[in-house]
């Protein structure tokens, strides 16, 4: 697996609910790619964003800092951010850096979808 290359997809799965799947190294470039996808979904009316990190095993603090910026932008707009499929180390890093105070963490995408679909602005 080429960990340097971020593989990213985004989709609006319901009105107001967008999902970003990101696999690869979350550094400044990877974090920015996620931020760009998030900005596009937010501009498209998504107030609820789920970021699925299945396939992401290595991160750095610069990339996570960019995710913090997305979170603050969503909070300003009264939106919500969630993550799923985090490794224990990424989960701990998010906890240390404060993402878990403002974002919800789900074990997998199915659980996240079922929990969040009711909260999306439909």
């Amino acid at each position, binding site marked *: 697996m080429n*960990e*340097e290359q971020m593989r990213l997809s985004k989709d609006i799965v319901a009105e107001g609910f967008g999902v970003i799947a990101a696999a690869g*190294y979350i550094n400044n470039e990877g974090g920015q790619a996620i931020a760009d996808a998030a900005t596009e979904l937010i501009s498209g009316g998504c107030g609820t964003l789920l970021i699925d990190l299945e396939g992401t095993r290595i991160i*750095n*603090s610069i990339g996570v800092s960019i995710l913090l910026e997305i979170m603050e932008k969503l909070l300003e707009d009264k939106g919500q951010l969630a993550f799923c499929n985090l490794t224990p*180390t990424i989960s701990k890093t998010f906890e240390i*850096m*404060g993402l878990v105070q403002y974002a919800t963490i789900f074990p997998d995408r199915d659980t996240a979808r079922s929990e969040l679909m009711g909260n999306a602005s439909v």
Partner: protein
Amino acid sequence: MKVALHLPVVPNVELVAAKAVETFGGALGMDQTRIEAASVAMVEACLNAMEHGGGQMVVRMSDDGPAGKTSLVIEVEDQGAGFDPDKAPRNSASRVHGCTSKRGWGLTLIRELMDEVQIQSNPGRTLVRMRKYVENAP
């Protein structure tokens, strides 16, 4: 076992060091979660060395300790201006929330993810020495 890498400052070179942690930690029998924690700490130490170190950095890895208390020891050395580790603040979520700059997490993450951390820093040489036990820290 001992490994030494002399790494140039080029984009994503920290992944070379992280890959070495994965291989070395796996050879020591470390589980995947502990390997990944050590890998992220290695990445952060390398990023600090690249940002503040002023040139090539040296990464060393070795195993240490008796059977049952074996640990992976990682050293990252640079030739930067140095800093006072006692005055390096621990970052916190409350400090960065709402601030424009959200940087400055490297040492905080290293200290949280590794079992032991020692920093020696003088003008021209900074050495970050980190230990991760193969099993839970004694």
